[in-house]
């Protein structure tokens, strides 16, 4: 896999296959370029309800609702969206709902847009302050394994877990059109 494009698609597909195998039936998201493959595959899958949110905090409540109704779900967002979730995370904390957030990082490595930086710096800390366990993924080869561990920690052991896909792993955003 010398072609980096192929390699990157490969880990994204592995992450989706991991989610699929774990019987996740709802995928809600605020889009990010780093999640585009996952979002597209979720929409293509007839056994998954994939739906966009207007703000990330909706996804916390939607995931908790899905669990009440008997389904597993996963929430996708970029790091700036974590800031929108803070109070809603009290729902997961208070009721010990299983929760899996997959977060693509911005503002931490080769960032062009300074507006991404403050929330990026606060992402891991604010999640941890609200009781969410955080795993950072730097190596694409380990992405699916980390997501599987997050799914197990959430759905088998009642935790709220966020997996942060680092910006270094995701690569530079292209600004030229």
């Amino acid at each position, binding site marked *: 896999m010398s072609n980096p494009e192929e390699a990157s698609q490969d880990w994204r597909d592995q992450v989706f296959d991991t989610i699929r195998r774990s019987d996740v039936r709802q995928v809600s998201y605020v889009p990010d370029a780093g999640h585009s493959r996952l979002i597209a595959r979720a929409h293509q899958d007839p056994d998954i309800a994939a739906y966009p*949110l207007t703000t990330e905090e*909706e996804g916390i409540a939607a995931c908790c609702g899905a669990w*009440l109704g008997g*389904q597993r779900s996963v929430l996708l967002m970029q790091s700036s969206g974590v800031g929108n979730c803070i109070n*809603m995370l*009290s729902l997961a904390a208070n009721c*010990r709902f299983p929760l899996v957030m997959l977060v693509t990082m911005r503002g931490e490595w080769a960032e062009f847009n300074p507006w991404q930086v403050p929330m990026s710096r606060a992402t891991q800390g604010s999640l941890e302050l609200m009781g969410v366990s955080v795993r950072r993924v730097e190596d694409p080869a380990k992405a699916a394994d980390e997501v599987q561990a997050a799914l197990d920690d959430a759905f088998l052991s009642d935790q709220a877990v966020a997996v942060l896909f680092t910006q270094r792993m995701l690569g530079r955003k292209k600004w030229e059109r």
Partner: protein
Amino acid sequence: MASTDKATPGRGLERRAVVQRLLADRGGLLVVTGLGSSTYDAAAAGDHDLNFYLWGAMGGAAVMGLGIALARPESPVLVITGDGEQLMGMGALATIGAQQPRNLAVVVLDNGLYAETGMQASHTARGTDLAAVASACGFAWSTTIDRMADVEALRDRIHRREGSAFASVRIAPEEPPRVLPTRDGVELKNRFRRALSLPAN
């Protein structure tokens, strides 16, 4: 509970009577209530394992209902909340409108007030029409209700699961005695799942 069939002009229906009517003969109805008075109203109508009461997470009630509705398409799902709670999650109406769950109804008990914090006027007292917002967001059916007969019809509509429904029910600015259900979130979660024959984890 005594109730008038028609709201006194400018006053509104009795909230407890409205919720009691909505939850009558509930069968397999799955209920989420928004924090504050809506939670007390549902508890006053009779505590039930399939009531999930929010004591916080303001703005989350409607979209929590969406998660349940997508997971259980054969069950009617009813969200009962207040105007203030729904205003904080107004984007959720767009999220629901985009999905069109046939089995989800959102009912806002609208007194135009933040009752829990001292009866400050909310945006619905200053011009926001939540039923119009829901309609513009694509809800299959949306209306404003100020008669108890329409509450009765709404109850039947919820059980028919014939399309995403939104109703803003004009209620009086009253504060009936508080009826406080459990605040134990884990218990609320586990009893709801148990009632659906789902394991705790």
